[in-house]
Structure formats: structure tokens, C-alpha cells
């Protein structure tokens, strides 16, 4: 998987203490028992860690970890493109 996915996995096993064997690309955040407040905290932690934040309701209980990783990559690419265009 990507570097972005690895950050997601690290936040889940680190801060949220999710057992490593449950952290798989097709697991959803809801399956890992992140409730609505935990989802906001998860998003906030992404911002702290890599400067990417999805904002309210963009990451839901139904989002898979792979999708979060892809979303991060897309956001980072967009930021990179915007910087390059400047």
C-alpha cells in the first residue's frame, strides 16, 4: 500500500489503539468502532500528522482505510499541483 495508507494505519494502531490485525485496506472506520466524535478526531489527527484534513462528513463510518489513503494522495497531489502552478 501507499505511504498515505501507512500513516492512516499508524494513527489507528497508535492513537486509537486498534489491534493491528484489524487494520486492513478494506476495513471501514465504522468497523473499527470509530464513532462520530472519533471520526472528527481521526480527521484532526491526519491534519496534525500530514497537513491533510477532509473536513466534516467527508470521512464517514462507511469509508474504508484504502479510500482514506487514496483521498490523502489526491489531496496532496492537488496541493502539489497548486504549488507548482503558482
Amino acid at each position: 500500500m501507499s505511504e498515505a495508507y501507512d500513516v492512516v494505519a499508524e494513527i489507528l494502531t497508535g492513537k486509537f489503539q486498534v489491534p493491528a490485525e484489524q487494520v486492513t485496506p478494506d476495513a471501514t472506520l465504522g468497523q473499527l468502532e470509530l464513532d462520530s466524535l472519533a471520526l472528527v478526531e481521526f480527521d484532526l489527527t491526519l491534519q496534525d500528522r500530514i497537513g491533510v484534513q477532509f473536513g466534516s462528513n467527508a470521512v464517514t463510518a462507511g469509508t474504508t482505510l484504502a479510500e482514506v489513503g487514496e483521498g490523502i494522495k489526491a489531496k496532496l497531489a492537488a496541493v502539489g499541483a497548486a504549488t507548482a502552478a503558482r
Partner: protein
Amino acid sequence: MSRPDIAVTGLGAVTPAGMGLEAAWRQVCQGTPTAATDPSLAGLPVDFSCRIPEFDIGAVIGRRKLWRLDRFTQLALAAADEAVHDAGLDPHTWDGARVGVVIGCGLGGARTWEAQHVRMEGLGPEAVSPMLIPMLVPNMAAGEISLALGARGPSLVAATACASGASALSVAQDWLASDRCDVVVAGGTESGSTRLMVTGFHRAGALSTRSDDPAGASRPFAADRDGFVMAEAAAILILERARDARARGVRPRALLAGTAASSDAHHPTDPHPHGAGAQSAMLVALADAGLSARDVDHVNAHATSTPKGDAVEADVISRMFPHRPSITSNKGALGHSLGAAGALEAALTVLSIQQSTVPPTANVDAPAPEFDLDLVTKTSRAQNIRAAASNSFGFGGHNVVVILTHG
């Protein structure tokens, strides 16, 4: 109908002596202090405290919830887990609707509050954690214990500053006596030794400034005492009606024979100069227990090591108990854990009764000459104790006295 006897059937604690009430008991019996220079307070006028040594709290209370709990709630959960096991109760099988939770707490999640305030000011409102409020409100200690144990009866946090832990025991007594509950998980918790809170207590003139000798800083009733030492701790007592305990084959560790609370109505932070409120609480607690002053064999004093507070308490004790019962203060060894202290000291008093042992007051060779007290110092004293009083007093003029007797 006479009031039923209330039994203490389980105890648990997390203290600067480590995980478990037994560690705290060993520490006070050895009379060795836990106060030390605190790296998290570096550079402040008071840079020492009594910290709980590192331990794997996630293994006790569950790792998944650690991120969403302030430390004061984590400590309360760990102490509650120990106490429930000690009582031989099984939260999977008990009637949760008949189990109450009442916890004393002075400050709540000060650590979370301060950390999130820094984020707000530095990074903006979008950086503030959604868990700020659930983590900092003091009632969450009771709420999370209720959640962890499936205790669906009444639950609340009592806040009477440094008397909070004792206030919780008084509420628990009422719930059991009035048959609102069959079991009450009662105690206190605090983890408030943050840079801001320590500095706040220092600015109020309450703390020892003995930074060159932190271990020797907390010296209750000593002539050269100069203030208290901040500590973190949680302590939980399981209370139930004595007849219910016996019916399930459990021998009470001790009886919670009486409690009383009074208010000074004198000054926001200073004790009444003659301890009128403290004395009133002692008198009413004795009456509540059906005892007279001369029945009290031992007093576990509030004695935080402040010049004024200790003097007033010594004066009241010697006036109330001219027969000179043994006196100790656990704060020489364990510091002052604010909202936890009243519960922790009640738990240690239960062990004094059970083990016929009065621990010494750490750091004290003898009480100040003006105090007429039989203060236990240097080594533990063997003593058969039938009835003991545990005092707690708090900012706000709160006075709470708990009477414990041999089960």
C-alpha cells in the same frame, strides 16, 4: 426502623506509590515520601509533585478508550476495577439498575483543557478536539465508571475541592441507607498537577516551595511546614449494606459508621480560625455513627502541611479528643491528591482498622510544640482500632468527616 449498617467490601487505588492500594499502604507504612522534582513543571516556581509512576493503564481499563479519556478518568477506572474485584462482585451478573457511582473530583480534566486551549490559540478553532468537553467535565469519571461496569443506578461527581472524596462517601451512605442502591462505587480521583494548576495553587500561597528538598516538602503538623505538595491519585471503595454483604458470604473490611458535612460560611479559602465548622462536622459525624468522642481511637487527619490549615485542625482535634487518640497524616508520604484525598485516606484508614496498624506521618520527627497531638511518626504503630475518624476539608469552607469502625 433503624438505619442499616453500611459495609466497606472492596478497595482499590492508584497513587504515587504505584498501581494498587497495597502499594500505597506499603508506602505510608514505610513512611517514605513520593514527592520528587517533576520534569513537566520545569522552570516554574514550584517544580515538584507526587506523580504516579508509569504503568500500563491500558492493560487494566482497555486500550481502545485511552485516547478519549483525560487521565483523571483513566485513574478512576483503574481504581474502580481493582475495588470491584476486591469486593468479589461481578458486573456481568449484578443488577446494574441497583448500582450507583459517586466520585469526588476537584478539578476535572485540567490537562485536556490546557492542551486544547494552546491548540485553539496557536492553530485556530478547527484544531480543537471534539473530545475537549467530554474529556474535561469532572462528571465523566462517574459516567465512564458507570459505562464500564454497567452501573445504571444514580451516578454523579461531588465537587467540594479537597473534601470531594469524602463527600462522595457521604452521598453513597445516603443512597444505601435510603435503599436507592444495593451497591455503590464511591471514591475520588484527581490528576491536576499541570503547569497552570500547580502555579495557581502556588499563587494562592498553598504549596510548599521546598524545591531544593522535594521529598521532604510535605511534613504535616511539623513546626517548619510551609505548604502542601500536589499529587495525583484515585481511590475507590465499594459500599453495600452489611447484611447484603454477609448474605453473599463477604465479610466487611470495615463499616462506614457515620459521615457528616458542614460549611464554614467564613471565607472562600481560609479555614475558620477556631475550626468551628470542622468541629461541627466531627460532632455530627460521631452522632451519626452513634458514638461519643472518647470512642475514637484514631484520627486520619486532613493535615496537608499548610501552616494555617494544620494549626486549626490540630486545635480542633485536641479540643474534641482530649483522650489523645493516635493521629496520622498520609500526605507526608503521598502528597495531597485534592479531590481523591478523602477517599484514599478513608481506604487507608480501613486498612489501619483491619491490620491494627497506624502508619507514621512521613517527614515528621515530632509535631510542632504547640500541638497537643499523639502524632505517629517515624515507624508504624500497632494499635487495636475500634473506631477511627477521617477528616477532609476543602476550599469553599467544606468540612467532611467520615467515621469508620471495625467490621
